[in-house]
């Protein structure tokens, strides 16, 4: 593995332009001060209750995601290129899903293999031929991006279902402005706090045409035991809409209502943070107590918008990912602006052979895995782990893809030993309304706090950073 690209310091020790002011500041600030502010940040986070739960870990019912106080910085130019690529990619995702559930041109053209759609457990036959409001499916996308050198960003993953983390983006900025006002005086940082306004505008633009001109929007949460509950309540609060659970809603004559102190009130747009499986016990999992019986029939009748739409999972697994460049070309007739990480599809015999021969240098991922679980990082794995994956791969090759171990870029991070480089990724959030696409500059930077580690997932000890996009002054 080559030496990772550091976003602050060039190989020759000089400082990259975006970080000039920050580097100067870091040089001057004593470590005690940084340590003090880090503790202060943690105290504030805990008091506000910005926590998440890790499933299967009873001691960690409510855990804090570690917050690193050193920001990650992008120039306006870098962001400009990135955001164009994100918009392009999200457009293609929407066209692809629409096609998959209607004419299936892309399957007929032989660009995406049929079984990837039909055999996919998250393919929803209920959505076949189903019209969704404004023909849009992925209204809120989280596209994970990594950087490998000063020029190149790769898309690592498309999250087209219910991407989370945006509350951290917003709270991280809030805390940074509280703790380090002097830094914001020296750097012209593009604001992100308008995200929730943009989200509300997006959600309202998606209301069914039958809704009146001020549509009623709600956020649907599985409840306080969900790992992202904090985020659900945070968003509802900032949007100024009700945070509902399934039991607060009911369906009458294919219209969705919520139970209020003044009687039933019609609901037009549901920003649901509940997986497809749990949405409606009549249509999907009958044992789901979290959903709303009859919701799918209201949806089919066109009386409510679900964001994201049902069945978007067909676009965000790791096997489909490998076809994204072709998907973009097919629908938009354009070259992809953002690269894909080269990916071996183990479903193809020659790819599988290559992967099996190079297990010790590749990252192997489950097609439907997420959260950094169920993956093999070849260069860091011991013999037993490699053999375990070799067996898994041979048994069920279609369930896996493999990628080279990328040298993810590093950013200066405040850890126990002081300031040291740590690997980061970036999750920008792309909002697609019926009127236009909105992206606030930046996103959520996740950082692997252990030296050398590439796993940034919060469930595996990753932390977050504030992400700055500098305006050209």
């Amino acid at each position: 593995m080559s030496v990772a690209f550091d976003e602050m310091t060039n190989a020759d020790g000089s400082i990259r332009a975006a970080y000039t002011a920050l580097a100067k500041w870091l040089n001057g600030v004593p470590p005690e001060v940084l340590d003090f502010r880090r503790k202060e940040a943690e105290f504030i986070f805990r008091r506000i209750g910005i926590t998440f739960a890790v499933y299967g870990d009873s001691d960690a019912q409510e855990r804090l995601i570690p917050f690193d106080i050193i920001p990650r910085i992008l120039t306006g130019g870098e962001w400009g290129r990135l955001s164009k690529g994100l918009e392009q990619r999200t457009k293609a995702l929407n066209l692809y899903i629409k096609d998959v559930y209607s004419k299936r041109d892309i399957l007929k053209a032989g660009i995406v293999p049929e079984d990837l759609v039909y055999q996919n457990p998250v393919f929803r036959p209920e959505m076949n031929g189903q019209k969704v409001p404004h023909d849009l499916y992925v209204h809120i996308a989280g596209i994970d991006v990594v950087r490998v050198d000063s020029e190149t960003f790769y898309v690592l993953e498309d999250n087209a279902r219910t991407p989370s983390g945006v509350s951290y983006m917003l709270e991280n900025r809030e805390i940074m402005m509280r703790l380090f006002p002097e830094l914001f005086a020296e750097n012209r940082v593009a604001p992100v706090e308008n995200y929730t306004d943009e989200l509300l505008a997006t959600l309202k633009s998606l209301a069914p045409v039958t809704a009146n001109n001020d549509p009623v929007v709600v956020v649907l949460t599985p409840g306080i035991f969900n790992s992202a509950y904090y985020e659900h309540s945070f968003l509802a609060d900032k949007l100024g809409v009700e945070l509902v659970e399934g039991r607060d809603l009911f369906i009458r004559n294919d219209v969705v209502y919520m139970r209020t102190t003044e009687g039933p009130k019609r609901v037009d747009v549901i920003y649901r943070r509940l997986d497809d499986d749990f949405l409606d016990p009549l249509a999907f999992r009958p044992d789901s107590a979290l959903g709303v019986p009859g919701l799918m029939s209201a949806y089919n009748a066109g009386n409510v918008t679900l964001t994201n739409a049902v069945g978007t999972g067909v676009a965000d697994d790791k096997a489909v990912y490998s076809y994204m460049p072709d998907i973009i070309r097919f629908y938009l007739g354009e070259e992809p602006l953002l690269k894909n990480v080269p990916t071996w599809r183990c479903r193809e015999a020659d790819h599988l052979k290559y992967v099996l021969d190079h297990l010790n240098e590749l990252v192997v991922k489950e097609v439907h895995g997420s959260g950094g679980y169920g993956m093999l990082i070849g260069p860091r794995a011991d013999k037993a782990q490699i053999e375990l994956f070799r067996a898994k791969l041979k048994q069920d090759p279609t369930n896996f893809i493999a990628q080279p171990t990328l040298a993810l870029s590093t950013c200066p991070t405040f850890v126990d030993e002081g300031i040291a480089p740590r690997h980061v990724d970036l999750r920008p959030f792309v909002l697609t309304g019926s009127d236009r696409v909105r992206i606030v500059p930046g996103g959520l930077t996740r950082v692997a706090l252990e030296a050398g580690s590439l796993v940034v997932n919060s469930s595996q000890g990753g932390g977050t950073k504030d992400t700055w996009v500098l305006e050209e002054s």
Partner: protein
Amino acid sequence: MLSRTADNLYWLARYMERADCLARILDVTQRLAQLPAAYGGSTNEWRSALLTAGCADLFKQVHGEEATEQNVINFLAFAPENPSSIRNCFEIARTNARSVRTALTIEMWETINSAWLELKRYSTKNMTREELARFLSFVKETSLRFDGAAYRTMLRNDAFWFSRVGMYVERADNTARILDVKYHVLLPDSEHIGGPLDYFQWASILRSVSALTSFHWVYRESVKPWLVADLLILNAQMPRSLTSCYQNITRYLDDIAAYYGRQGSSQRLARNTLTRLGNSRMDDIFQTGLHEFIDGFVVENNRLGSFVTEQYLL
């Protein structure tokens, strides 16, 4: 607003108020129990604390007959098996608060959340008197902060009104139960008027609703049992009196009704109760029986709780 949200706010306020009331009961009980027997101090005080808190039966199931200082304190303050222990009140309040975070102001949430975090710092077994005193003032301060935060920061809309209704329904219930457990020392035919034994009992009743000083301001007399009863039942100046609680309940229920443009059974019942209190005189109450009067009140107050639930919270 969502019915579930209103329900959570209503109960959140009730549990915060209950925690405060329990802290006062423990405070006063300890004071009384420390007095030499000649001044009314006796181990019975711990039993009457259980009665006032309304959990004597549950206590009996868990601990049997013997109510000692240590096991009553543990039971009322910390016991996980007592659903109304102070700790559980805070736990439930926080769970409710988490599920209605969007309806709370940040100040209210921070009060509850930091109290919940702080609670973990108190060891639960065999507290020293000093630790207990510190714990009880922490509880009282928390409910003051919560109440103040709500009053100062909430929008004056249905969210505020439902939480106020919850607080006053709970407060009325608590005041009534304190009276109910101690009613025998308030009867005017009591033998030892002004005697040391009863004086401390009366003072302790006043203290448990933090009204000892107010008493003197209102009546400018030494403590007399019928005046204690008057203060706690009929006196509208006294913020924990039944009359004052019902003035507030009526007012906030009316605010809700005006806002929604519709009256209902809870408004009617609250107004009836308030009218009845307004038409009562202490003499009549003593004549028909203090105990019966209070019992009747507790039943009506519970009925109001179910009316509110039926009308708004389901």
